[in-house]
């Protein structure tokens, strides 16, 4: 089970986050200040930390994060903030954050990102992998070529990037915003319908006629790549 530490001072928001994460199958611990959060994060072992940027008291979100990283704790941290300005985002990530989510957010977005963060921890990316495989779908990361069974799938560079991200996060829900940020390298976007069109194209190429579909749409959330049963 994935253990999540939630550091959030607003009781209502914390309650909602806790409920959403528990429903998603996470084991949640909640603290409402930076000092306690730091102690917990250092003494217990968590898979991922959800950290509010604004916290009461001497230790705010960024302060706690800096202290955490200085103590050599590498637990992935997702920063929650009401400040969406790009500078804030950059500052948060620079202080050692792994992801950044602006309030108000949708819980599906939060859980999808936490899934990605905690999974990343299980399979460290330092390991050099040249091939990725999900079911009968195979990606050659060096040649940037894709095969489904014996069939070669011809993809445009952007489609390949989308598929690579999906494969890296196979069996996880990936939101449109996550895809956009990872593949287009621009942050924050509301034009999710455009991503849908891109995904539609990709899907037509990956899931050919008569093949078991691998790319599934999760309504109101995003996509998931599953190996055919």
């Amino acid at each position, binding site marked *: 089970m994935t253990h999540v530490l939630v550091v959030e001072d607003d009781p209502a928001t914390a309650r909602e986050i806790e409920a959403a994460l528990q429903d998603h199958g996470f084991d949640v611990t909640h603290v409402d200040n930076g000092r306690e959060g730091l102690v917990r994060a250092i003494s217990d072992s968590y898979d991922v930390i959800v950290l509010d940027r604004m916290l009461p008291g001497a230790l705010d979100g960024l302060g706690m994060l800096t202290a955490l990283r200085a103590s050599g704790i590498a637990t992935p941290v997702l920063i929650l903030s009401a400040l*969406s*300005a*790009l*500078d804030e985002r*950059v500052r948060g990530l620079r202080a050692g954050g792994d992801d950044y989510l*602006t309030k*108000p957010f*949708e819980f599906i977005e939060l859980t999808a990102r936490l899934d990605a963060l905690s999974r990343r921890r299980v399979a460290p990316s330092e390991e050099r992998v040249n091939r990725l495989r999900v079911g009968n779908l195979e990606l050659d990361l060096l040649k940037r070529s894709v095969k489904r069974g014996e069939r070669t799938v011809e993809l445009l560079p*952007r489609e390949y990037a989308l598929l690579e991200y999906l494969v890296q996060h196979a069996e996880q829900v990936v939101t449109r915003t996550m895809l956009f940020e990872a593949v*287009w390298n*621009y*942050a*924050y*976007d*509301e*034009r999710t*319908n*455009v991503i849908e*069109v*891109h995904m*539609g*194209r990709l899907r037509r190429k990956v899931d050919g006629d008569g093949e078991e579909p691998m790319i599934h749409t999760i*309504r*109101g959330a995003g996509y998931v790549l599953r190996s055919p049963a």
Partner: protein
Amino acid sequence: MFSVHLREIPRTISFRTALMSLVLFSCSFLALFGYLYWQTAGYLLAEVDTALYRQIDSRSAQPEDLRLAEIRKHSEQDIDGRLPHGLYDAQGQLIAGAIIKMPASKVYDKPAEFNWKQPKKNKRPVRFILHRLDNGQTLMVAQDIHDIREFDELLVNAMVSGGSLLLVVGLLGAVGLGYAARRRLDVLTRSIERIVKGDLNERLPTRGNRDDIDRIATVVNQMLDELERLMSEVKGVCDDIAHDLRTPLTRLLAGLERAQRRHLREEEYQAAIDNAIEDAQGLLSTFRALLRISEIEASARRSSFAEIDLNRIAADAAEFFEPLAEERGIELTLNHAPAPCLIFGDAQLLFDATCNLLDNAIKFSPDHSRVQVAVMDTPDKRGLCVVDNGPGIPEAEREAVFRRLYRSESSRHTAGNGLGLSMVAAVARLHDMRLEVQDAQPGCRIELIVSA
């Protein structure tokens, strides 16, 4: 109603300035007059002294009997006593001359003064020199200086009366200036008070003579114009928000109430909840977009400015929208500049702005038409433009489309929150870019032009 209390006048700057210059002027007046007085009076007395010495010299050089004769003769001729002489023996007794009694002063060969009492006449001021002659007698030559004294007096009188006049006129002037300034400021104050009370249409009165107060009033009026514009914009935005958010909220509520009222099956509840979530998410995204525009307008983001290539932005945006255009059979073309078009800006924001423009262009273009993204990099025009073959934007609406939540009549039924172009406008303002809407005949051409 324009009455000015007298005790308020001394507090005005004009009054104080006038008073200060009055003091300075009085000082210089005193100095000038004092110098004049000292110079003329001293000069006249010096003239008298020279004449007296000359007479002493000539008289003492004369033989004794001639001198006696001449003094006697002179006394008879000088009836008015203009230049009285006196010759006294060693005991101080008069031998000859008009001045019977030798003055008490026993200083010789130095000019001195005394009041001479002539028989049957008033005392008159007289300047004299005593000289001891070789034969032991004392010679006295003198000159009536009554005229000089009178001249002095005249001079002093002139100074006193002139000075008083100066003071009176100056003080009156200061009071007048203070009064005028006070009155003018009162008018301004009253206008400002009305503005503070909420009448933003009020403007400070100006005289059009470009003086100090006029200039300040003009600047303040400009500030008020801007303030009024902002206030009306805020009000407009509030109205729009209230209006635009009421519709989806009503829909949301209606859906939930319907679900509550009817006895639905489980999957129907599911559908109702899904609809409600979708509506709420739509509302949330409108709020997010509004917040984002405010954030951009707070212009704190200049700190994230860097050198970026407009070609890259245009290419990314065109590539992002290409499948959407293709789906509708729209030909999306990219005309990039031959060389990198580098400007100082925020890549994220410019990308978003370009996407918004493209989104609109594709949304409003008919199927199988053309949309073009171009980077302009000529000496007189640098920037980015998006051209479509859609219905275009009527001349009258070209300003309004950049307002928050504005939806033109023709776009009411297309998806969107009316914030896309406002966001573009905010990005343009942050980058000091000009945003121009032109007629592409048919269609619309929107240009983002970097200010030179």
